[in-house]
C-alpha cells in the first residue's frame, strides 16, 4: 500500500485519518504544521500528501508551493483538505498544482476512495 503524510494542526483530524488510513493498510505519518510537514516530506518520502490550509508557521498553500517548486517532491500528489469553501481558494489550489480540493466535513471512506483513485490502487472494503 501507499505512504501517506497528513499535515494538519488539529490533532483530532490527525488521529482520525491516521487510524482510518492505517486500518486501510497505508503507512501513515503526520505533521502538526507546514514546516514540520516539509521536513517530514523529506524524511518520510510519502506517495501522497493531505494538507490543511490554515496552519501555524506555514500555510497549506505555501506548503503546496514549496513542494511543487522542489524537483524531488513536485510529482507527489497533494490534496488540500479544508473547511474553506470559497471558490477563490479552490482556484488558487488548482493553480498551484494541488491534485484535489476536499472540503470538511469529510467522510472517511470517500477520502480513502479519492486516495486510492489518485494512487491507482484498488478500492478497499469498508473498514
Amino acid at each position, binding site marked *: 500500500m501507499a505512504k501517506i503524510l497528513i499535515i494538519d494542526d*488539529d*490533532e*483530532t*483530524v490527525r*488521529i*482520525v485519518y491516521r*487510524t*482510518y488510513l492505517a486500518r486501510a493498510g497505508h503507512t501513515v505519518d503526520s505533521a502538526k504544521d507546514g514546516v514540520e510537514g516539509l521536513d517530514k516530506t523529506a524524511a518520510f518520502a510519502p506517495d501522497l500528501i493531505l494538507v490543511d490550509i490554515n496552519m501555524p508557521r506555514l500555510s497549506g498553500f505555501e506548503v503546496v508551493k514549496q513542494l511543487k517548486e522542489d524537483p524531488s517532491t513536485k510529482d507527489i500528489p497533494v490534496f488540500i483538505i479544508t*473547511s474553506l469553501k470559497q471558490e477563490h481558494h479552490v482556484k488558487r489550489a488548482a493553480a498551484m498544482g494541488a491534485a484535489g480540493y476536499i472540503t*470538511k*466535513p*469529510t*467522510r*472517511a*471512506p470517500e477520502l480513502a476512495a479519492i486516495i486510492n483513485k489518485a494512487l491507482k490502487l484498488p478500492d478497499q472494503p469498508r473498514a
Partner: protein
Amino acid sequence: MLEHLTGAPLFYDYLGWAVLLLAAFNAAQIIYLLWNKARVERAERRKDALRRLTVTAVMTSPTPADLLAPPAGEEEYEACSEAIAGILENFEGEIAERALGLLERFGVSGHYRAMARGGRWYRRANAVDMLSVFRLEENRGSLLELFKKERVASVRYRILRALSLIARGHDDITTLACLLSELPYLTPKYTEDLFYNAVTALKAKGREEEFGLFMRRIMRDDRVLTLVKRDCLTACRAAACEKAGELFRDYYAAYPEEPEILAACVKALARKGDFSLLPDALRHPHWLVRLAALKNAHLCREGPAGEIAALLSDHNYHIRLNAALALARSGERGRAALRAAAASGDRFASDSASYALEQETA
C-alpha cells in the same frame, strides 16, 4: 522626623524584619506561581490525553462509550466535548454518528444545558458555544428558553448562532429573524452568517426549499428589518441556493425604493449568471444599485457596454471609476469606449477612462 525615626533603638531591627518578610512574601508568591503553572500544565496534559483517548475510542469501536469511563468532573467533560466537537466539525457519516452516540450516552449535552443556566455569564457563553457545535435539535427548546431569560448581550448573540445551526424548517428561520430584532445592534456579517448557517443546515438535510418559503413569508413582514432581509438574500447567494433566481427577481420587483435590497438582488443574480436586471439597475437613480450592477457587469460576456460608457459621466465618483473599470474588463469593445472617453472633452469621463487604461497596462 526622619532622624527621630532612624534614631529609634530598634529601627534597624524592624527594618531588617520588614525586608525579610517582604523577601519571604515574594519567594512564596514565586513558588505559588510556579506551582500553579505546573498544575495548569498538568491539567492541560491530562485533558489532551483524555481527548486523544476519546478520539481513539471513537475510531476503534462502534460503541466508544464501552471503552471509556463516563466524565466525572468539569475537566473530563471539557476533554470529552472538545474531542466530540472536533470530530463533528471535521467529519460526517459513521464517525460522526459514533461521536453523537457517545455524546448521548455520557449526557454531555445535558451537562452543558445545565451549565448554560449557571450564574456566571462567561460559563454560560462557553456552554452555549459547545451546544452550538453539537447541532442537536433537542437543544432548540432550551436555547429559546435561555434566550428569553438571558440579559447579557454577548451570550444572546451566541444563542442565536446556536439556533441558526439547528434550523430544520421555515418556522425556525422565521423565529430566528424575529429574535434578531431583540438584539441591541446587528452587523451585516453576523446576520449573514446566521442565515448562511440556516441555509447550509437545511441544504444538508435536503430541505433547501424551506429557506425559499421563509423568504417569501417575510417579503411583506414588517417585523423583519429590511436590512435583515438584505442579509438573507446575501446568505442565499453565498450558500449557492439553486432555486433562488425567481426569488431574487421577486424581491427586486417588491422593493423598488430599497437600494440595499436591489443591490443584493442584482449581485446575487449576476453571480448565478442571470444578467436580466443589469440594464435596469444601471439606470437606477440610486448610486448603490448602479454600483452593484457595474461591479458585476464584467461577468456578462455581452455586457451592455453602451450603458456602462454613459456612466463615465455620472455625477458620482465611485460610479465613474467603476464604470471605467468595468469597461476595461469587458474586452476590446470596452477598451475602445475607454479610449474614446479618454480623448473626449469631458474631464470627469476622461480622468476615469485614463485611470482604468493605466491600471490595465500596469
